[in-house]
């Protein structure tokens, strides 16, 4: 049996211009950005304008002339050391808080963990992450400070806690900062841990991987950008912190934030230009951190999308 197929010439395509109907919905949609206007105004008034003013002032001399003398000054001597001390403290506390917070978050989201544990820990972390300043300093002074309860208690066993880890030193301050750093890490890293699919773990197991091999080859590479990103935020928070350190170290403090406060209030000597230059240095460091953070977030979103 013969089979024939009729082939017709395809009609010429006709260009049709379709005009989108004007609707009230699209009109409303175009005005949705107005919702962020109060926030934008707030940020402009209290962040962008002061930042701009501060940057200008950092390069302004006594006669309102342009000068880099302030910037040059803070790149040497005690001011440079204050940056080093602040970076050391921020890095150490981000490391302590980051590691501790990560392991805690992992335990909270682990398969089989009771659901109340998660809600309890998230609530606690929300509170503890904001517990800083004088109350936090008092909490540590009264427990592991020179005359703290635990310091006195362990003295009976021959341990001198106050001299081994002084709270005003870098290690001591890092320990104190860890109190608000690790809950913040918990809050930041839980969404990333939630993004790990159960199928990845099961697939890895099915393919012969042990739990350690799964974490090493699959989970950690996926989580690493999120972990590092969270630790960058912890670093930034600790780097800019002031009240806790000032309460614990008093006039002996050598962090950038403490120098800025002292220079502005005339505690040592009034030198606003140096304080602006120090603040400018902080802005530069925070900006670099934010760029790094944004890059890490992009990377994290790529894996966990």
């Amino acid at each position, binding site marked *: 049996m013969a089979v024939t197929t009729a082939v017709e010439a395809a009609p010429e395509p006709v260009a049709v211009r379709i005009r989108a109907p004007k609707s009230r919905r699209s009109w409303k949609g175009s005005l949705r950005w107005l919702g962020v206007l109060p926030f934008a105004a707030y940020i402009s008034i209290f962040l962008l304008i002061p930042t701009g003013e501060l940057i200008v002032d950092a390069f302004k001399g006594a006669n309102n002339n342009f000068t880099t003398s302030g910037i040059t000054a803070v790149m040497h001597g005690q001011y440079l050391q204050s940056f080093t001390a602040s970076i050391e403290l921020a890095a150490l506390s981000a490391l302590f808080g980051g590691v501790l917070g990560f392991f805690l978050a992992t335990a909270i989201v682990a398969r089989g963990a009771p659901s109340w544990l998660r809600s309890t820990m998230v609530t606690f972390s929300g509170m503890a992450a904001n517990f800083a300043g004088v109350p936090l300093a008092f909490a540590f002074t009264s427990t592991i400070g020179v005359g703290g309860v635990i310091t006195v208690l362990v003295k009976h066993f021959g341990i001198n806690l106050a001299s081994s880890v002084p709270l005003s030193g870098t290690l001591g301050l890092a320990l104190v900062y860890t109190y608000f750093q690790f809950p913040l890490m918990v809050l930041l890293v839980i969404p990333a841990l939630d993004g790990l699919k159960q199928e990845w773990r099961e697939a890895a197991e099915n393919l012969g991987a042990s739990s350690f*091999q799964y974490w090493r080859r*699959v989970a950690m*590479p996926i989580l690493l950008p999120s972990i590092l990103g969270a630790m960058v935020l912890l670093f930034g928070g600790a780097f800019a912190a002031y009240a806790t350190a000032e309460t614990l170290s008093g006039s002996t403090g050598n962090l950038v934030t403490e120098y800025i406060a002292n220079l502005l209030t005339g505690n040592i000597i009034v030198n606003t230009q140096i304080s602006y230059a120090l603040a400018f240095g902080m802005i530069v460091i925070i900006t670099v951190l934010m760029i790094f953070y944004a890059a890490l977030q992009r990377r994290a979103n790529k894996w966990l999308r």
Partner: protein
Amino acid sequence: MASVELQGLHKEFGNVVALDDLDLDVAAGEFVSLLGPSGCGKTTALRCVAGFEFPDSGEVLVDGKDVLGLPANKRNMGMVFQAYSLFPNMTAQQNVEFSMKIRRRPRSERSKRALELLELVGLSRQAERYPRQLSGGQQQRVALARALALEPAVLLLDEPLSALDAKVRVQLREEVRRIQLELGITTLYVTHDQEEALSVSDRVAVLSEGRIEQIGTPAEVYTHPKTSFVASFVGTVNRAEVTVLSASGKTVRWGPAVLKLETEAFAYHDGDAVTLYLRPEDVTLGLGRNGTIPSGGLFNGRVTSITFLGPVTRVSVRTEVGPVVADLSSAEALELSIDSEVSVDVAPGALRALAS
């Protein structure tokens, strides 16, 4: 190739019985599908075999050896999951190489084997792509290649095609079957899609409430359902409640019609209520000529809906015994329209009677 036996597998989640003393034998090299609705226990059974769930009682034997004591990473089973499960931080090739890397196989061997497997699933050109750069169908192909990398004793597929669109699903299920036949690997395939199960399997096990209702070849399950659940779940079916007129004569009354059933086993008594099952493709419709009422059928009826399904057209007819659905060739159905008066007849031997 390995045989798999599930013996008295029982699993409960709280008060819910997921597996109710399930028994299943899968011969070496066989492709068996576990088919059933959501919550019937098919995935739980598969996960017990894989080592991701542990039954409350029962045994899972692979080549006669109980594997329940082994963790999932020691069972040598390849698994493809319902959700896309490729590691997002690895390329397609790295995903396939993963199990070999874990076993510390030499790099050259890993690479060669991975590329062979990607070739097998038709993705050798996409070896360097990351999962996010692959379509859903391609990701599941890579997952299949990854599952086969260590030449597992058993291949487990947990609804691997359910997230894909219809055309890719059909294409990929045929490829899964081709590869299974090529490698001769024992395969357990979980699906709720009857067409999928019937088209690729050596045998189909229909599950309901944690138990196997029927297991047999696709043709057996489709044409000779043993329970009303199987008859209703596998394929579309017309159901009718009828009365046994004569058990010895195997006759039943369906409305005005008396039907003789051509079945070997007929374990009913006179007056018993039974349910008749009739596939739509076994129903024939006669159209009256020039407005006359058609004759020769079991009963007359009026067409209430016509649904074009491609090669066949599904026609619903309202009759005095209730609605009857018929599948006609689309060419035949062209003569029909809504409200057409038709006679309804059934193919001899097509009726199945099961206890109501």
